[in-house]
């Protein structure tokens, strides 16, 4: 670790890992509710559990991005973070806000209160005081990072990262506008998380991946930057209008069917480019970096993002297909693999890279970490297949044959049971990962003698 302030990232990664554990545990509970529908129905209604599952995912991914930025910006800009105090204050605000959200939802406190109660909008139902807190935290973050970059060296990696993070924060402002027209409400609602995952987050992903490739493979910065610019250009070109594939279904004009279908079909391009980028860099790279776990997560990220976001997204993006599959388990299959591949693996990659350095234990517990990659990834991939098959059957029975929703759900039980099994593997993998990062142990396997590189 070259700069002292990089260790801010450790606190962020710590909180992120804790929320990661919460998120997958709730996922397991929800998976069980699918096979035992009355499980915890009084204590934790399905809608509350689902909201906690998705919200904790988003929050921990964001905390991971913030941590990644605090880790890599000093190294890229070649100076300390502008104000470490502000960085910790930002984390404190976010933790308080998250706790406030969870308590408000679980006990439905202050229902209907303008400032304290939940807003009743799916995914952006945070009470207003929490939303204000999120904006304050985001402003602190952007100020802190931008000041650091402005005073230091500007690289393509930090420029793209800042572009992504500024866009992310500005798009969140739509959460404050709640028009009474439901179609408009949904439109602004979509501007937040979907312009995130199909736009600004891809920029964050590309820049963090580029940083990892730079460190792990030792390929020239000039080459990495060229790839980065091409990836970012194709991501923005396809992603912004690509979100149009949702609009027709929320009540917007019919021409969005075509704009959405055509542009979102090209959203596979940046994900393919990121996968090609990661593998080409590794093949070209001359550096044999000892942190094989970080490299495994990076390659896994690029590959699973291509399949989850790219291929599984394209699977149902054309409006002729989506007419039948919209909101079925096909959507759930895509959502799980896309989030896991693109953003979960990315965070776990940068954590696997940075944590051993920050803790001065370079690079411990590679075996456990890599085992957790295979366990978790197999779990999510298996889950994706079970949900895809469930969705195919559901689409046919419910949307084509016209059977009732609950009758069809009964027939999907076997898929949900298998999905629960894969969920157990994911949770065990997550626990193994957290353990391997958090608990230092002696090296499991002695490194063998390296044969000289060609």
């Amino acid at each position, binding site marked *: 670790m070259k700069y002292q302030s990089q260790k801010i990232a450790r606190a962020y990664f710590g909180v992120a890992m804790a929320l990661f554990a919460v998120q997958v545990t709730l996922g397991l509970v929800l998976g069980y509710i699918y096979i035992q529908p009355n499980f915890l129905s009084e204590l934790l209604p399905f809608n509350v559990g689902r909201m906690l599952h998705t919200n904790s995912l988003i929050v921990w991914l964001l905390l991971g991005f913030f941590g990644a930025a605090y880790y890599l910006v000093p190294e890229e800009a070649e100076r300390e973070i502008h104000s470490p105090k502000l960085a910790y204050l930002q984390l404190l605000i976010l933790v308080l806000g998250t706790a406030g959200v969870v308590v408000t939802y679980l006990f439905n406190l202050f229902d209907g209160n303008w400032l304290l109660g939940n807003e009743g909008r799916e995914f952006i139902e945070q009470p207003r005081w929490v939303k204000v807190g999120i904006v304050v935290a985001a402003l602190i973050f952007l100020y802190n990072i931008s000041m650091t970059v402005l005073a230091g060296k500007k690289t393509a990696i930090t420029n793209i990262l800042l572009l992504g993070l500024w866009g992310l924060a500005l798009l969140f402002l739509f959460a404050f506008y709640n028009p009474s027209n439901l179609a408009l409400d949904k439109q602004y609602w979509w501007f937040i998380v979907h312009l995130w995952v199909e736009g600004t987050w891809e920029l964050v992903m590309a820049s963090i991946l580029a940083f990892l490739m730079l460190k792990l493979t030792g390929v020239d910065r000039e080459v990495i930057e*060229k790839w980065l*610019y*091409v990836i970012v*250009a*194709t991501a923005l*070109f*396809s992603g912004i209008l690509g979100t149009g594939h949702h609009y027709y279904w929320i009540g917007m*004009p*019919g*021409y969005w069917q*075509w*704009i959405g*279908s*055509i*542009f979102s*079909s*090209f959203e596979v*391009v940046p994900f393919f480019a990121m996968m090609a980028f990661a593998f080409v860099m590794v093949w*070209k790279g001359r550096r044999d970096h000892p942190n094989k776990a970080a490299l495994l997560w990076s390659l896994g990220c690029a590959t699973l993002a291509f399949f989850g976001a790219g291929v599984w997204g394209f699977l149902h993006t054309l409006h002729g297909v989506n007419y039948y599959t919209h909101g079925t388990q096909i959507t759930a299959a895509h959502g799980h693999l896309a989030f896991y591949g693109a953003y979960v693996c990315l965070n776990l990659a940068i954590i696997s890279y940075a944590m051993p350095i920050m803790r001065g234990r370079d690079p411990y517990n590679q075996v456990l970490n890599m085992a957790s990659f295979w366990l978790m990834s197999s779990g999510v991939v298996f889950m994706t297949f079970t949900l895809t098959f469930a969705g195919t059957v559901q689409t046919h029975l419910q949307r084509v044959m016209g059977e009732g929703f609950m009758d069809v759900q009964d027939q999907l039980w076997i898929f949900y049971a298998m999905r629960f099994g894969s969920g157990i593997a994911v949770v065990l993998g997550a626990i193994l990962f957290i353990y391997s990062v958090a608990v230092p142990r002696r090296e499991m396997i002695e490194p063998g003698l390296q044969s000289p590189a060609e």
Partner: protein
Amino acid sequence: MSAADQRALIDDLPGDLMMWVLIVSELLVFGAGMLAFLAVRITDPAGFAEAQSHLHRTAAGINTLVLVTSGWLAALAVRDAEAGALARLRWRLVLAAGLGAVFLWLKAGEYADLAREGLSFDSHPFFTFHLLLTGFHAAHVAAGMILLLIVALPATPRATEAGAAFWHMVDLVWVLLFPVVYLI
């Protein structure tokens, strides 16, 4: 081919690599749009032919000449940039952008006539595609005009090539749209 050769190939592209990424992306999107249009037309050839008869073919034909002439001026400007004739270069780029304005003016007249007839996106699938494809294209004409005026300021060969490359893409897309949407 070695890695060095590959890099040289990329560096040999006129203008800027990013401009070529954009141009290829644009061509893919317009190409996909036109293919979708032709595919949907198979389901209702008579309806499409009837809808098409509401368009101004002559005005669109004139617009083709306007845009091709404008592209020719941009191509000459690239030659000026290499020769270092900056005054002539700027004069030609402004003229090329001016012809872009003529194109948009004629296009606006066509849209206004359709609106007067009460024809819009939802009137018929033909008009959904016609308005989407030509509307997106018109937006690119407007963007291209701004780009031509911007590259006229530094007027370096590289900038002029990038601007002209984008303008030729706009030109090319129209030359494809005109027969597909207006004629056949």
